[in-house]
């Protein structure tokens, strides 16, 4: 019973941790789905959004603004910063590279990553900034059934709740709105989309803005978990196996991929790790990703790539 309790606790904890990875992975999916660009800068965007949020929040609270109004104003400020970032990236990075191949665009996002990381720390600071938007204590469920109960962290549950809302919102956006359909058209073929009158620069601005706002949402959860600091950029590496498993073009795939990675790596670390020296969860996620890649290269939910030769 003790072992079952531990297994369930690790499984639930892993699934919820996976949802937090999905929050970061969603930003990648959005940009890839809408523009065919693998955005290496997504982790840096989470850092920028988090720093803009926490620094403005601290500024407002220190000047006596009530907490709730400070949070709303700080979220708006961070949203504006992400909008400006989206515009700058479209105007100076992607705009001039329209119709270039995917590798060129990918390389340009690597450049954007370093600029965003450096600029955000230069402007907002490079310390660790505590952020407390959600409760971080835990529930202990089924204490009567399992000794010590099953621990479920409230922050992780909040993360899952927020991810659910995000996915629903994005599904509506892509399927039901004119802009969403235009985004998908641009993703299929830049030139063809342009030829039927879809304004590519506007579409790219919108998609980077949405990805920026998703980064802001991820920053609220991860900032509460870790404090807002440079290390948040490493979350991009946690999102990568999620994308490989779920598929680069699928919003639900990002969630399912996150669940698989989260549960898989935690179970492996806790139950397999002690027998082989531990510290395996970081690479075990990639083992899972490679396994999926071999069977289904486009990921579990990705669009199958068929090219006419």
């Amino acid at each position, binding site marked *: 019973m003790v072992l079952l309790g531990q297994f369930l606790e690790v499984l639930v904890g892993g699934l919820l*941790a996976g949802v937090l990875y999905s929050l970061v992975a969603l930003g990648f999916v959005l940009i890839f789905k809408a523009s065919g660009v693998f955005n290496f800068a997504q982790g840096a965007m989470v850092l920028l959004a988090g720093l803009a949020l926490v620094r403005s929040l601290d500024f407002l609270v220190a000047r006596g603004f009530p907490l709730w109004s400070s949070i709303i104003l700080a979220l708006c400020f961070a949203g504006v910063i992400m909008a400006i970032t989206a515009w700058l990236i479209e105007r100076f990075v992607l705009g001039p590279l329209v119709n270039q191949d995917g590798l060129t665009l990918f390389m340009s996002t690597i450049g954007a990553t370093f600029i965003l990381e450096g600029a955000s720390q*230069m402007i907002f600071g*490079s310390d660790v*900034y505590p952020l407390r938007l959600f409760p971080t204590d835990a529930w202990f469920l089924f204490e009567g059934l399992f000794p010590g109960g099953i*621990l479920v962290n409230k922050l992780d549950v909040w993360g899952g709740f927020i991810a659910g809302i995000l996915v629903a919102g994005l599904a509506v956006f892509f399927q039901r709105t004119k802009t969403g359909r235009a985004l998908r058209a641009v993703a299929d073929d830049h030139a063809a989309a342009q030829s039927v009158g879809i304004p590519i620069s506007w579409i790219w601005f919108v998609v980077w803005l949405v990805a920026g706002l998703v980064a802001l949402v991820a920053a609220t959860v991860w900032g509460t978990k870790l404090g807002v600091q440079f290390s948040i950029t490493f979350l991009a590496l946690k999102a990568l196996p999620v994308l490989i498993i779920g598929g680069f073009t699928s919003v639900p795939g990002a969630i399912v991929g996150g669940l698989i990675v989260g549960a898989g790596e935690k179970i492996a670390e806790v139950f397999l790790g002690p027998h082989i020296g531990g510290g395996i969860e970081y690479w075990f996620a990639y083992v899972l990703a490679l396994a999926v890649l071999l069977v289904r290269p486009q990921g579990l939910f990705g669009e199958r790539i068929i090219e006419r030769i």
Partner: protein
Amino acid sequence: MVRNTLVLAAAVLTGAALATPAAAQGEQFIPILSYRTGAYAVNGVPYANGVADYYNLVNERDGGINGVKLLVEECETGYATDKGVECYERLKGKGPTGAAFINPLSTGITFALTEKTTTDKIPIITMGYGRADSKNGAVFMWNFPLLGTYWSAADIAIQHVAKELGGADKLKGKKISLLYHDSPYGKEPIPALQALAQKHGFEFTPIPVTHPGVEQKSQWLSIRQNKPDYVLVWGWGVMNGTAVKEAAAVAYPRDKMIGVWWSGAEPDVTPAGDQAVGYKALMLQHGAGKFKVHEEIQKHVHAKGKGLGKDDFGQVLYNRGVVNAMLGVEAIRKAQEKFGKKPLTGEQVRWGLENLNLTEARIKELGFEGVLKPVKISCTDHEGARDGRVQQWDGKAWKVISGWYTANQATTEPLVKDISAKYAAEKKITPRDCSKES
């Protein structure tokens, strides 16, 4: 904040904030390997500020060491071993006599440089970190793990646990886990803790955390199930704060956690807020606070607008940087007694390090009273001192909660001898006869 950051960045890029950039013939060159960017910048910045401010103090107040000004250049490693080696290669030959010594501030870089510095005849100072076996100067002629190795730290931590439990005999049957950064740094205390577990009969469980340590859920769920009596934390950067938060999330008592001295600074606890209250950490002798030397830095460096440490002035890692810089400066001063008041080579400074003897009176004279205990380096003992205390975070500041502990060499010395002998055999080094050294 923005302005400060910009000024700092510009200063670091140009090297202008640290010393006069022009390389004059009469200057002693000292490289600073630092990390002001990347995952570990929150800990690297205050440390580097302390080092830079002290070198500036020596130049501004004293006109250098006996008239020999210090020429300092900082190189950003990002805590990455490859970049650290690159910085070393670029800076080792600078100045009229090359680098006086190198201080990598990374155990990984230390491992990578240990053989290179031997060939280049440049001493490598690793105050409170690095290879623990390099305490044996007979084998590691160029390494100086001053003030305490990780094996000394492990022994001090277990001494404190024993004291809390009511005696060393109470350790038997207890469970002690080590949550460690999965790197050369984090792995270094494991042999000592295994030896201590065998000696005292406690159950020891090492638990690795992968760099940089942002995700520790698995580790803490294991800890929750295993219910160790104490968790020792050997982390750096984000790993420390995350460990404290995860401990709170699984309701593990923070006052049963003891961090090594690299897991016991302000950036390690402030992100966790109230959750960090009760968390304990070892002190590499000093803690936070302002002493006579700080007054001097304030007067001669900061008042002239040349100081780098502002918000972190007097914090734990800033003070560690100041102490580290002082020990290097005093080694050069000692070497000047033998080789003359001129810029010295690394080989000459090595002699100064090996013969450094800071008495209580000299420590007071230098403005470090209350910060340090006497330090005496010798050929057989490149550590020089192995004293520590324990501090506890009360939510606002670190409070010293213990008296002084001295690491028990009866435990660590056999390990030092054994592992350094293996190293000597592997590298075909003939250990020096320390009785013939002077």
